[in-house]
Every structure is written in C-alpha cells, then in structure tokens.
C-alpha cells in the first residue's frame, strides 16, 4: 500500500498566485450579487449624473452668483458616484463576507493556505473589476453630463486642464472604496455588520461631525472618504478640500490600513 505514489501527484513546485487569481476570478463572475451590485453602480453613477446635469442645465440662468462661482461641471456630472460608491462597497464586503457566512472560506484556505495570498488575489481581481467598471461609469457619466449641459451652461471637455485627471480619479475612487469595503468585510466577517460599518464611515460620521465647531469640522472633514472622493473628482478645488493628488494619497492610505488590518486579523484568527 504505497500512499506516496498517490499523495505526490502534483507538478513540480508549489501552488502559485496565478492559480489563486484565476480561482478568485471564477468565484467573482459566478455569483449574481456581482452582476447586481455592478448594475446598481452603473445605474446610480450615470443616472444621478444625468439628473444633476439636466437640472443645472435647465436652471443655470436663474442660479445665484454664489452657486455659479463654485460651479464645476466635471464634478457635477460625476455626482452619481457618491451614491454608486455604496454599490461597489456592498460588493467589496460580499466578496469576502459571503465566504465566511457560507463556509466557503474553509475550502478556499484549504486550497491556498497562504492567507495573505488569498486576500491579495481577491483584492487584485475585485479591485481590477471595480476599477474597470468605475472608469467606465466615470467616463460615460462625464460625457453624457457634459452633452446635457452644453448649450445651456458652461461645460467641460477632456482636453481642458485637470478634467481628464478628475474623471480618471473618479473611477479610481470607486475601486478604492471597493477595496476599503473589502478590508472592512475581512475585519468584521459578517455581511450586515460590515455594510453598516461602511455606511457609517461614508455617511454617518460626516453627519455627526456637522455638530462640531467649524474649526474642527473644516480641518477634519477633508480627510473623510466622501470628501476625498469629491476632491479627487474636482477640477476647481473647493475650500477646506485636499488637492486631487493629496486626496488620492489619503484614499490609498485608507485602502492600505483596511486591507492591512484585515490581512493581519485573517492570519491570526481561526478560519
């Protein structure tokens, strides 16, 4: 009874990142939640942008001077991503929390015992898809928004300084929030809890901060994810907002911290 002949039937070497990446791609594309959350992202990102642009186009002549001073047509057409970020966030949470809630995580970790590799593969595949769809939504929302504005109000074009960067960074923000959500999902491991934490981070904490004196509010709020996203997708820098480059840096810090803590806990905790 020789077991070694049976046991050692693998090819030379060791399980690889390429296999883990292919597996994560298979898992991501074979559940319906992926399709539905991405459809929601597209609908919110483009739809809300169309509504906001059409609204401004129709009221431009009667808008106050103050509103016109702060007017940024690029940012306006990308407004929908403020809502769409929830959709990509939900998918980011589900990518990992669904594995824990269904028990699939045990099969995944039995196949690939290197847990940081599992998380990195997930982040790469999901982050790549989120970036692709995020850029698609950003560009479509920008182009439809500007075509609605043209003829009624000042509008932007990709050739103007800072416009292309703002549209590209809007798509990057979508992917970044998705990865932050995935990190939260890895930390909390329960879908409902992780989505609540994400909504709290994106919407509730900024609301609570409104109660604070403006000196604190103005210096802190620019670092919140939503404000960071708005700064990244802007051509005209608003008061108490980061530059697009600095905002991108802050977003990267959020991603690194969320996924870093997630990876650290994943390695330490029992699956």
């Amino acid at each position, binding site marked *: 009874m020789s077991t070694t002949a049976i046991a050692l039937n693998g090819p030379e070497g060791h399980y690889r990142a390429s296999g883990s990446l292919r597996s994560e791609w298979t898992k991501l594309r074979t559940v319906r939640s992926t399709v539905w959350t991405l459809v929601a992202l597209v609908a919110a990102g483009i739809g809300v942008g169309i509504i906001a642009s059409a609204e401004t186009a129709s009221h431009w002549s009667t808008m106050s001077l103050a509103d016109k001073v702060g007017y940024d047509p690029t940012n306006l057409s990308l407004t929908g991503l403020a809502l769409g970020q929830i959709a990509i966030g939900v998918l980011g949470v589900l990518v990992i929390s669904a594995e824990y809630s*269904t028990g699939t995580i*045990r099969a995944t970790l039995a196949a690939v015992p290197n847990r940081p590799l599992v998380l990195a593969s997930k982040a790469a595949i999901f982050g790549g898809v989120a970036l692709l769809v995020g850029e698609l939504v950003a560009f479509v929302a920008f182009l439809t928004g500007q075509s609605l504005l043209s003829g009624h109000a000042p509008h932007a074009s990709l050739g103007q300084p800072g416009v292309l960067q703002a549209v590209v960074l809007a798509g990057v923000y979508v992917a970044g929030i998705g990865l932050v959500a995935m990190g939260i999902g890895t930390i909390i491991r329960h879908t409902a809890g992780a989505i609540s934490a994400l909504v709290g981070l994106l919407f509730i904490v900024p609301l609570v901060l409104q109660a604070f004196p403006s000196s604190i509010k103005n210096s802190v709020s620019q670092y919140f994810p939503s404000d960071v996203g708005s700064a990244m997708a802007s051509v005209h820098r608003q008061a108490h907002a980061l530059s697009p480059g600095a905002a991108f840096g802050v977003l990267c810090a959020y991603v690194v911290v969320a996924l870093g803590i997630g990876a650290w806990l994943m390695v330490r905790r029992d699956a």
Partner: protein
Amino acid sequence: MIEARGLIKRYGKTTAVDDLTFEVRPGQVTGFLGPNGSGKSTTMRMIMGLDAPDAGSVRINGRPYGDLSWPLREVGALLEAKAFHPGRSAAHHLTALAQTNAIPTARVDEVIELVGLGSVAHRRAGKFSLGMGQRLGMASALIGDPGVLLFDEPINGLDPEGIRWVRNLLKSLAADGRTVFVSSHLMSEMALTADHLVVIGRGAMIAEMPVAAFIAQSSQHFVRVRGPQLAGLIPVLHGAGATVTTDDDGALSVVGLEASVIGDLAGANQLVLHELSPQSASLEEAFMELTHDSVEYRGDPQPPPKESVDQFGSTEKVRSR
C-alpha cells in the same frame, strides 16, 4: 499519514481539545469517534491548518498543512455540509477549487460524475438537498485525487442509499492505499465502516485501537440467571471465578462464565434454575458508557479480542436497531 502530537485547543476557559496524540495510517479507514461537542471538528480544522492549536502540532505526510506544495492534491476534506456559496453552481465551485492547485478542468467533470451530481452540476447549489450538498462536499474533497482524506460526519442528513454510498466510497478510498479519517458520533456506523478507531470524550483521548478490539472489549457479555436457589449458586459461581451482581428483580448477572458452564455448575450442585440466558449490551450502549466518564476507562489494559462471531453478531444487532 496524519500525525497529531499533543494537540491542545482552548476557547476561553473551555478546553475543546485536550492533549491529543494519535496517528492516522494509510490503507485503512480510521474512525474518529466521540459524542457531539467532544472536539472532533476542532481537531479536524487544526489538521487542515484552519484553526491554530494552543499547543502541539499536526503533520500530514510529515509536513504541517501550510507547508504542503499542492494542498488539494495531498489532502481532501469534507468539513461541513453546504460549505459553498448558494448562488454558485457545483461546477463553478469545483472549477474555482481546481484552479488554485493547477488541477485540469477535466477533473471537475470527473468528480461530478463520480459523486452522481451530473444532472444538477450547473444548477445553483443553494437549491441542493442536504444529501446533494454532502455529495458536492465529497467532490470538493476528491478534486485533487489526494492521498489523505478527512470527512467530518459525512453521513449526516443522508438517506440509507446515500449512507451505503459513503460507506463504500470510504472503504474503496482506503483500499486504494489512501489515508481516510472519518468522524462520527455513531459507534454503530464506525463499526461498519472503520478499521481503526480514535475515540475521544470531552476533547481527551479515551482509546486508540482496532475496531475489532473495541467491539470485543465494549460488548459486555453476561449471563442472566434466575431460579429459587440462587443463594446457593452465588458462592459456586464465585468459586469458579465469575463476577456476580444481583439485579433489581432478583436475577443474577454473571460475567466471566459461559452459560453452558453455569448450567453445568448448577446441575453438579443440584440447584434448580428457571432462566439461563446469554446477554450482550449493544455497541452504542458500550460506547456511551465509555465516553460518559472518560477517566474511568483511560489507561485500562485492553483485553485481547474475543471470537469474531460474537463481534459480527453484535454489529449486526446494532445495525438493525
């Protein structure tokens, strides 16, 4: 080959697994027996590198799980029923697993056919019955054609046909020369499937021995004796080396003498008997008694196996219950 050395796992103040040391050898089915909550699943997760032991170590083919080159090609496990995404099809679930360890896609169709899920392979697995879920779990375990297999309560929720299927599968895997480690809380099931036993209670080792020895040791054989002159019979039985206890209804339970010998002794001493009947406790009762108080049995010298006829007799009896 699985080797566990001094495995300990604590959850707060509770010790779920208490200093377990055992070996699971290739070419036979090793049953991992213990009441529910005795630490079987925790032990299996530690073998798989999913839970970290507080002390001790476990090796598969000489290496910790995390050091295996192609884990799914060396170890396959069914750890819980329905450990898959309900929205994903069986084929996609298995494909995702196969890709991690560079297993050819053709193997996916192979294991689907092997476990009999061919007609539902592309249906969402959330619609599966418990039995179909167990079959998908089996397919997941077999995807890499591994030499070491772990199954945690594989017959839970299966119908009689499914149970027979699992039994035959486990035996044929062992006959291939693979290491097969299967947990159960049913002694009767293990008596039919396993060759070797690791018995635990409250996380601690109670016994590690061949199934045949366990059955022989556990099936308490005694002879029930009734009659009007038992007071005279007791010293005679004692004299012949038997252990005698008096039951509530006045009958004697005699351990250590065959019924025929007791009858001969009664006849020789001109004592009248009204009943002389050999009895045996079921395996399940013996197992419950064994695990009820693990300390009492731990370290007891094991008596040699008795006649195999008795073993199979008691096995069959348990199965029919």
